[in-house]
């Protein structure tokens, strides 16, 4: 088997920046960030070709947290900056990260024009239906009657529906997904990345501080099958826990029907994301809970000429005719000045993991119990220059799946049975004298023994890790495995 070694294989961790992520604990933004880091390595695009551009708001801190190029720009103007970047550098994968206020209120004007031009960028709108950063005023997507700090008697503003706006601007790609529906979120982001032209994605995102539970109807495991409907190209619109309900067109109006009783799948509305006219997509974007299940997935994906391509064709034609222009002259025209930075005030924010009332005892337990409750077992360790053969012996003798690689008191990496199979494989006999440092997984993610078990679940499910080294005062005291987690949860379920 031959492998193309010309491009380095990227992993989600390669897209993590060195910045502390400063969203409130429990914010839906975390989930979107994690999925973005997972999707980007699958696109076959080098890391230096990605640019994340944002405006102002909680979501707009996104570029700091991606180890790519980025620009935290001015309020509502991310689409304008993105237009410039993409037009000058059509080879870049350009992402606009915005929120309901930034995109639809302050920047409504810019958004509309980026979309109608069909610039080849991906716009991801985190819709939490509130102003989070400014602490809880109503946003352009807050529902009628919503009581907030700035609408004490309830909002009287008819809300905007982001997808209806995008379709009104004739967006060529329109999709909706949900922060905690991580598989769906990942697949929608991947589809958006593949689309040539403006890809507009609305993500239902929970603000657990100022608008907690806004999307509970669509995320609750017991109700989501009834309150959302997953769109699939060429398939009928069917929903419900038992997949026994569907959407039928009655003239120009959608209606909910029950399958059986003389109604078959053929009577239902079939989704077609390729329709040249945006009418069906618009109709779907008007389906709202509680009257209808809310569609998630790709509403529309069509091809149309792109702004960035056409402008560059014009520029090439102009240069051929008139020669290069002189931008330097323009840059140095007019006044320049600088502003002194004021002194920053130090504050300490409270951490409040979860931010919502636990739904059941298991959830309560993982938020309250420390990782020490899993009794991390002291694990064997080896020095970085230990030969592979001795490490394999240690793994089998101690009957564990993972050893720590330690240089004195410093944790350098871990070596697991998965590493043995994936990295040594059929060549193990030739590699047995090599030092373990060549094949270990370096700089493993760790947790402290006083961290909550919920964090271990997060690492294992989102990060895909099966072993986590546990630290006390920064020094490893043991390892927990996914089996320890299962055992813990099984005991809680039994109690």
């Amino acid at each position: 088997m031959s492998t193309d070694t010309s491009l380095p294989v990227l992993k989600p961790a390669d897209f993590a920046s060195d910045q502390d992520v400063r969203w409130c604990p429990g914010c839906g933004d975390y989930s979107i960030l994690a999925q973005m880091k997972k999707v980007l390595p699958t696109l076959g695009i080098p890391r230096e070709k990605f640019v994340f551009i944002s405006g102002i708001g909680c979501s707009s801190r996104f570029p700091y947290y991606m180890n790519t190029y980025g620009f935290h720009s001015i309020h509502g103007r991310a689409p304008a900056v993105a237009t410039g970047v993409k037009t000058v550098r059509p080879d870049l994968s350009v992402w606009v990260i915005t929120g309901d206020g930034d995109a639809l209120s302050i920047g409504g004007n810019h958004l509309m024009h980026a979309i109608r031009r069909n610039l080849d960028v991906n716009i991801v709108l985190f819709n939490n239906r509130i102003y989070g950063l400014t602490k809880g005023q109503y946003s352009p997507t807050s529902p009628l009657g919503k009581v907030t700090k700035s609408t004490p008697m309830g909002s009287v503003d008819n809300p905007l529906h982001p997808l209806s706006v995008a379709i009104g601007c004739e967006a060529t790609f329109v999709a909706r997904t949900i922060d905690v529906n991580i598989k769906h979120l990942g697949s929608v982001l991947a589809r958006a990345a593949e689309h040539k032209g403006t890809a507009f994605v609305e993500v239902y995102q929970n603000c657990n501080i100022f608008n907690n539970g806004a999307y509970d109807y669509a995320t609750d495991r017991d109700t989501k099958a009834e309150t959302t409907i997953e769109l699939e190209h060429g398939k009928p619109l069917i929903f419900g826990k038992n997949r026994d309900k569907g959407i039928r067109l009655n003239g120009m109006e959608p209606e909910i029907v029950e399958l059986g009783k003389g109604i078959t799948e053929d009577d239902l509305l079939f989704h077609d994301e390729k329709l040249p006219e945006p009418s069906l997509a618009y109709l779907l974007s008007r389906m709202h809970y509680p009257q209808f299940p809310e569609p998630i997935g790709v509403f529309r994906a069509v091809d149309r000429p792109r702004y960035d391509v056409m402008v560059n064709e014009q520029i090439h034609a102009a240069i051929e005719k008139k020669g290069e222009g002189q931008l330097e002259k323009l840059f140095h025209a007019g006044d320049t000045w600088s502003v002194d930075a004021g002194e920053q005030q130090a504050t300490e924010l409270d951490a409040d993991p979860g931010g919502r009332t636990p739904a059941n005892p298991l959830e309560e337990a993982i938020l309250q119990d420390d990782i020490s409750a899993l009794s991390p077992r002291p694990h064997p360790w080896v020095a970085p220059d230990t030969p592979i053969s001795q490490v394999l012996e240690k793994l089998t003798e101690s009957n564990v799946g993972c050893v720590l690689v330690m240089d004195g008191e410093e944790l350098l990496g871990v070596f697991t049975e998965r590493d043995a199979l994936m990295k040594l494989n059929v060549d193990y006999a030739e590699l047995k004298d090599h030092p373990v440092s060549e094949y270990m997984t370096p700089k493993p993610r760790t947790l402290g023994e006083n961290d909550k078990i919920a964090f271990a679940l997060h690492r294992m499910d989102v990060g895909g890790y099966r072993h986590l080294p546990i630290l006390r005062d920064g020094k490893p005291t043991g390892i927990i495995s996914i089996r320890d987690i299962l055992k813990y949860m099984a005991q809680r379920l039994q109690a």
Partner: protein
Amino acid sequence: MPDGGLFIPLVVEVRRERSFFGVPHRLEPNLNLDAELIAEAHPVEPLSVVPDTSVREVFALMKAQKTGSVIICSDGKVAGIFTERDALNLMAQGASLDAPISEVMITTPATLHADDTVGTAVKRMSEGGYRRLPVVDGEGRCVSFLKVSGIIRYLIEHFPQTVYNLPPEPSQVMQTREGA
């Protein structure tokens, strides 16, 4: 909290004889381990080989498919299982890779049935210390593969915000007030 009871009566009737660890569990209605089938816990496609496949081929296949286990099937029925743990033991012994997999596989592995509940799967896995179990149909054919990670995800799906929306580092103290 929306009413979680809409699908309980149907399933409880069918599976009344089963209860988790022999006692009816007392959790909130939205955790129905005794009622929901393992299809809910994200089973995956099994990777299967025939018994005379060489260990060398199986190693290469596991690496190529990035998977930690294979099912060995004979005449369509499960004959054994071979996991990365077994691979590790072979490597540690310096064993030959040319033997057929049937000589080194674990025969008559623990299995689950497609109509088993999530509760049964949790019990079998946690008691037996298994990280993955083949799921067989009535005729002993392997139809899917249930992994502990699938069960963990199933449980998390009952409270996704609590887990998926956690910050990447648990104890983070802001030194400065944030700008926009």
